[in-house]
């Protein structure tokens, strides 16, 4: 299990991970291939591969086999959990 600080560090580790998080937050039902997801943030599959890997390791994104390729989806429950962890870490939960 990663600690909150490790999770935040991972998410903030690159512009791409942040872009991916934003993309899935805005489109929680996005289902697309790595290529398709990459295109949506103006990048190519090879450019986003490792960042996607990081989010998959955190359990935020899930890879599902689909025909000849793999599709990515958001684990909404996990994403929410992490959101709450980050919020409490930043001390936002007490409405300050």
């Amino acid at each position, binding site marked *: 299990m990663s600690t909150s600080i490790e999770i935040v560090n991972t998410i903030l580790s690159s512009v791409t991970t942040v872009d991916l998080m934003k993309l899935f937050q*805005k489109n929680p039902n996005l*289902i697309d291939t790595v290529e398709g997801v990459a295109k949506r943030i103006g990048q190519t599959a090879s450019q986003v591969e490792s960042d996607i890997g990081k989010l998959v390791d955190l359990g935020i994104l899930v890879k599902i086999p*689909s025909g000849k390729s793999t*599709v990515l989806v958001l684990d909404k429950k996990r994403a929410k959990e992490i959101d709450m962890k980050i919020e409490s870490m930043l001390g936002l939960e007490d409405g300050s």
Partner: protein
Amino acid sequence: MAPEMARGRAPTGVLEFDAMLNGGFMKGDCVLVTGAAGTGKTNLALQFLYNGVTKYGEHAVYVTFEQMPDQIYRDAKTLGMNLEKLEEENRLKVVSTSPDVLVQNPDMITDFSAERAERIVIDSISYFELSRKNSVRDEIYTLIRYLKTKGATSMLLHEAQTESPHGFGPYEHGLSFLADTVVVLKYVEIESAIQRAVAILKMRGSDHEKTLRELKITPKGIEVGGSFDQWEGVLSGAPHKSFAIRMSKAFGGI
């Protein structure tokens, strides 16, 4: 309260439009909605889904191939529809994906947690033309067959390219053959003002209105207005006042 749902029908909830359809689309049918950019395809489709959920208690899925689909929520809001709320209540879902993924995982995309989706919109099938290597017609045919097996009433949106009389080229004719019902949205220019219009070109197994009617996009949603009956040739894009009116004008009438 919503009007009662006629048996075997899937009303859009847009009263005048349902009247044109003799009560609504036929349940389980595949409806092709074709029109140029901005004619109101997405808005009409959202209204169909939104009313399906809020007025008729059905479950709805909106599948979009747009790169930035999140603006759909904002667009819907300007027409008085709160999609996020329905998503939270698990009665509607907005799925963004690509045509390839849809064709390979239709269940994953159209299925609801526990319920079956009664209304499905694909916005738009024009993306198949951009992305598929295989025969577009075969792909779309497979998709239509799938939607029909699911028993859902579906709307396939299509961006018409051609400015032929009905906005229909040979390819669109193929599409319109596959669909059970064909709705055309178009712009009409009347005395140098641009208006939107809607017509039902075909509806298998049902009578329907044949005239072109005004389509209005309002902060309260889609509305259908009167016909352009004093205008001839509106569907062909070159409207001129009808002979009878010109004659009566010439003789001091109207």
